[in-house]
């Protein structure tokens, strides 16, 4: 790693992120009374840089914060939004908790598997989508069944809406905009029935 120069021929800085972003790291650690508290932030930084948290990120963070690698791994694996493997451009996290389950979550998962041609935990061949299911509630029970794509929420996702979302993203739609326009809108009858009750 040391052999890699500061800037490669294409002008990109190829040093490890923790070297390039040392100032950010220091600022983050300085925010807390104990360095340990910066763990979540550093994991997020690693993922921001690489798309997932790699073994060497775990080792670096452990060393930097004076924690054991096991401790870092334990925290990282607890949260379903940290990824330990490379993921696609869009990470679809379907809520697997009880409310979403009762409102058709299981059907939604099956539908997405079929449409994407992958099993839960896998990434499509084109590298566009990764399908995940979280065991924990994504805190969107009012919009069950819900899913999250990267940092955006999508509520009351029935198979038809799922297809529309996938198609829009394949067509290059902006994720945040998509969530604004169709993600949080009520799909119709169910929502209104709930409202009137």
């Amino acid at each position, binding site marked *: 790693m040391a052999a890699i120069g500061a800037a490669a021929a294409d002008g990109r800085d190829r040093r490890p992120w923790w070297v390039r972003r040392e100032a950010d790291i220091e600022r983050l650690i300085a925010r807390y009374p104990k360095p340990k508290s910066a763990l979540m932030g550093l994991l997020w930084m690693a993922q921001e840089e690489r798309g997932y948290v790699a073994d060497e990120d*775990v080792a670096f963070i452990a060393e930097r914060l004076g924690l054991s690698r*096991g401790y870092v*791994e*334990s925290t990282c694996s607890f949260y379903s939004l940290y990824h330990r493997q490379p993921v696609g451009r869009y990470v679809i996290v379907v809520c697997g908790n009880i409310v979403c389950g009762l409102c058709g979550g299981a059907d939604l998962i099956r539908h997405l598997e079929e449409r994407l041609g992958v099993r839960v935990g896998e990434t499509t061949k084109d590298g566009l989508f990764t399908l995940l299911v979280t*065991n924990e509630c994504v805190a969107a029970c009012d919009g069950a069944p819900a899913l999250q794509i990267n940092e955006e929420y999508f509520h009351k996702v029935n198979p038809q809406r799922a297809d529309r979302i996938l198609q829009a993203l394949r067509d290059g739609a902006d994720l945040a905009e998509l969530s604004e326009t169709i993600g949080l809108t009520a799909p119709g009858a169910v929502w209104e029935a709930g409202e009137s009750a």
Partner: protein
Amino acid sequence: MSDTVTLTINGRAVQAPKGMGLVEAAALAGIEIPVFCHHRKLKPVGVCRMCLVEVEGQRKPVPACTTQVADGMVVRTESDLIRHLRQGVLEFLLLNHPLDCPVCDKGGECPLQDNTFKYGPATSRLSVPKMKKRKAVDLGNFIVLDEERCILCRRCTRFDAEVACEGTLVVGQRAHEALITTADGETYDSYFSGNVIELCPVGALTSKAYRFKGRPWDLSRVPSVCTACPVGCNIELDFRFGELARVLSRENPEVDNGWLCDRGRFNYRYVHSADRVTQPLLRRGDTFVPVSWTEALMEIASRLRSVVRDHGPEAVGFIGGGRLTNEEAYTFQKLAREAVGTPHIDHRVAGQKVTSWAGYPGRLDDIDGADVVVLVDVLPAEQMPVADLRIRRAAQRGAALLALGPAAPGYRVPHTFIPVMPAGLARFLEEAASLVAEGEGQGRTGELSTTGAPAGPGPAGVDGQEALVRALRSARRVVAIWGGTDAAVGRALERLLNACRRTGDDRRLSVLIPGEQANSRGAEAMGVRPDRLPGHRPVEAGAAGLDTAGMLQAAAQGRLHALYLVGANLQETYPDGRLVREALSRVPFLVVQDLFLTETARQADVVLPAAPFAAKSGTYVNLEGRVQEVQEAQAAGENSRTDGDIFRALAEALGRRLDRSSHEIRWEVQHLLEELTVDGFVTGAALPGEAGAGAPAPAAGTARGDGNRADGRRLELVAVSRLYGGGGTARFDPAFSAVRPRAEAIFHPDDAAELGIAAGDPVELSSGPEAVTLPARISPQVVKGTVQVPRGAEGPAVNMLLTGGWHAPVTVRRRVLEEVG
């Protein structure tokens, strides 16, 4: 009293100390609150919910483990609601638990079984299949995890984080996928891993060695004391069909606090090893022939008699004894001094000079209250592991932990490592002593320039010294732990402690020295020393015998005509392999008394099969001077005999009875120990060089000619203790031999770069005509300028490069491939 509160539990008034948890307070009143995650030695976490109780004034039931007692608190542990909740908790815990109790090691001693029996529902409402998880996950050296049985109480991970202070074992994932695991690529190879088996309240964590070997109710249990190191942890030996099936902790808060190390817990199968010597062996040319005890003893007696007749009794030497009971050690020196008449007897087999120290007696529990712990050329995790848990805890609660020496201790707790080369250690300590004295306005004045900036105590320089001096100046309770390998370091340490004492009034200063064998201190107190008789009494001036080094030199020079080794594989343990080789090949008559045919025993004229520790009755003295008694737990077996019986029989063959009745020796030892006891502990000996310390030991071997090669580089070889290293007990134990360290040479990255060495490269270490080739490893933990090798490792004997101490300059050379091929 203000530090006691009164509360009511189930209508009974209970007095409990402030801050106590409800589980313990209820236990004081004889009321049981069932628990899983709670353990009195771990911090409460309240994750299993089994201990829910009602507290008046609280809206909901509260977990008793995380709730502290308060004055006037009214608690109910047996209401209908609580009974209902316990049933609910148990139904949930059993939801995915496989209930494979009929084939579970824990069955019969399982809190999950017992609590379900007492508090649980008899049935489950689960109508779908249980979750499937992995049944036999290999966690590390000794532990197998059954993920289905685990109820995620976290006792194991908390032990690893809070007691072992390592943090390797963690809970991974979340919710129903949560599991006990380690970081990717790591294994749970802590020296203390076995404790999690006993902590586990279900059968999730099991011992590889004991798995499926027995049912708890079939085991015969015998209390004993561990003989793997000088801490002397209290153990229970569990036998099945007369075979040792497992070793458990038998809690003694003053010694082991209920913990064991993995060497003590898992290295027991050697007792039943097929490699045990089971019959006395007599050399006939190049082979051994098995003979009867009578024949073997008559042979030894007649050979010893002719040596004494031709060369005098001083031509006989006796080495060993640190593994014997006190009674056996006492008999051993009687055999040497009375039956043979030689003063040459020494228990030290691994180059240690000092085993105990009367000046600053230390206790294990001194570590608990210490505000400074100083490690001087010692690696507690390797030499006194369970005591190291106290050191780690002290460092974690804020005590200053400083380590001085040529090898870093590798703690995860806060500590300061001050690299000091062995040769500079005494001077480093002496200078620190001067600085401590000056800082207090006593002792020497001025001359700071000559003492403050040492020219060459090693790479430590002044910073390390300042750290040490600063810590000691403000310290009230200091514990120094010292390896005892260099008497000059001991005298310097004494100066340092004297300087601390002079300045303080109520300071408590103590020293602990881990002996090189389990009962080194007992052997010393029993007079297995050339310069001291039983009871630390110095021999008459000029009458001191030769120590181990002296005997080996005398044998190598042809002045010693018979050598008798007891539990001493000198070829492996003594830090001068060449001297041992010369001595053993030159000495005309060699007797080895051991469990196994070690490389040393193979050179013997007579081999006597000794019985293992479990077959012995007697007492041991641990590193703090505590006397602990053991009873015979199994028969000596086959044709072996206990060491004590062998000494008595041999003395009789020599025409001398060592005791008039079987109780006499025990009685004499008891009196000796009582005489030596101060405040309940056996006192140590005087430091060599002090008045009353007896004759100084003859000098060890001198440095060899410098065989410097043109293409090599000089580094200081540092041979470090390894918990799993050495000993026939490790080598001939099928379950344990796999973890014995492999011989390797470990370099600092800078030295490796300079030498052009990569990991795995063969490197040649040489000293004079001796050379050893080892695979290289690179670690930033190693001090620059040193090359570290493990002691007692599997592979080439590195002690061939040493000359009496555990460090020596060597020439290092990378070997090219053709040479190795």
